[in-house]
């Protein structure tokens, strides 16, 4: 197996050039897919026989929740890569991804709360899913705060990588413990998974929306990483030429 891609990925210059070709396209595809998925879900998917129209919040809630967790997983992997191989791109990735993940967690929390009011009669329940997304949101905010506070770049890299890896180790423990705690306190009456399986024309738009969110996030992440690369590699000739000549 060839490891060239791995080394290439570690080079900020290569990544910049590669992502320049793809970022906009990926973002636009994401935007399109999100609009299709969400629009379909909002206007064309059938009414849920239990929750009526309110369930249509799912087309935002689920993609955001999925992305909030995927982003955190990717942060953990990047942290590990940095600690083991000191790859330059890893902290750039972490720094760019953390705010996106935080936004996704925030969307999941807010949409969950608004969904909760008409269906459960309350804005918030200490449901296992909600609680673990809340913890996730706090973890994201911690990483962002750490990056903003530590002024030494190398130290900030190291610290963010360590917290990401710890989070990766800890996330399953947190999820498990919260699940466990939740079943002790109250029966899980509001579980999404207990609902009868969704009909095809309900979950297909959901699938498209999830894919759309993934692409949207990927595009945004590439743009943010590009800015971070320019900033960090400002002393190299290629960045100087890029900035001065084509204004990027």
């Amino acid at each position: 197996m060839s490891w060239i891609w791995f080394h290439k990925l570690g080079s900020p210059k290569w990544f910049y050039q590669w992502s320049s070709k793809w970022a906009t396209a990926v973002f636009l595809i994401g935007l399109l897919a999100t609009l299709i998925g969400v629009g379909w879900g909002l206007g064309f998917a059938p009414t849920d026989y239990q929750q009526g129209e309110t369930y249509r919040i799912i087309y935002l809630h689920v993609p955001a929740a999925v992305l909030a967790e995927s982003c955190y997983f990717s942060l953990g992997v990047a942290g590990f890569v940095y600690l083991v191989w000191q790859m330059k791109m890893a902290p750039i990735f972490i720094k760019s991804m953390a705010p996106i993940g935080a936004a996704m967690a925030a969307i999941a929390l807010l949409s969950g709360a608004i969904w909760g009011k008409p269906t459960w009669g309350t804005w918030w329940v200490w449901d296992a899913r909600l609680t673990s997304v809340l913890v996730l949101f706090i973890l994201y905010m911690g990483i962002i705060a750490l990056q903003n506070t530590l002024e030494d770049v190398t130290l900030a890299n190291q610290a963010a990588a360590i917290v990401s890896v710890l989070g990766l180790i800890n996330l399953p423990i947190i999820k498990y413990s919260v699940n466990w705690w939740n079943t002790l306190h109250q029966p899980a009456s509001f579980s999404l998974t207990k609902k009868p399986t969704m009909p095809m024309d309900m979950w297909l738009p959901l699938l498209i929306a999830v894919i759309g969110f993934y692409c949207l996030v990927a595009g945004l992440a590439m743009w943010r990483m590009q800015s971070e690369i320019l900033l960090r590699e400002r002393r190299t000739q290629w960045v100087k030429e890029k900035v001065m000549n084509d204004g990027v």
Partner: protein
Amino acid sequence: MTYLSFFKAECLTLFRSKQRVVNALLFFVLVVVLFPLGIDPSADFLAPAAGGIIWCAAALSVVVSIESLYKESYADGTLTQLVVSGLSLPWLILIKVGVYWLAMMLPLLLLTPVFAQMLFLPSDSLLVLLATLLIGTPGLFLIGSIGAALTVSLKQGAMLMVLLILPFYFPIIIFSTAAIKAIQFGLPYGGLLALLAAISLLALVVAPVMTSLCIKASVR
């Protein structure tokens, strides 16, 4: 420098600055007192909540006091000397955290029965509470040590450190209070203690290494 001489020096240093430990214990006492004052002093509320109250107070006093674990050694340059001593940094960290754990947990374990009484904790739960403290708090200290190292170079790092570290305490607090609840309902709690032990063991393996990485990046 040898591991033994470092251990001795750590014990001496902590003994000289015992006020730090006393402050942390007073903080623990105050947080415990807040609950009857702020919520409800009746036994109906306190008895089932006692385990949780004591655990929250313990976790808070650990996270707040461990923040300064490396601050002084960072300021006076001894932390750098530890890094360049040629001894294994993770082991030195383990010694440091271990000494601090002993110094703080021994009095805390002695205080706990008193507070358990004041919070009307049933006496059969007390032993489980003590067991969870004994098994679970090493995890708190070890994870806290990582946070302390992350923010060692910051003057105003306390809040950041609490924000970073407290979420990692959630599982420990959940399993501990669950074990205390379990005995109150007459359910088996051995599995929960095992889970706590597993978390502490995991922290024992991971935390010294992570802490040493942070310290090495901080002392440059």
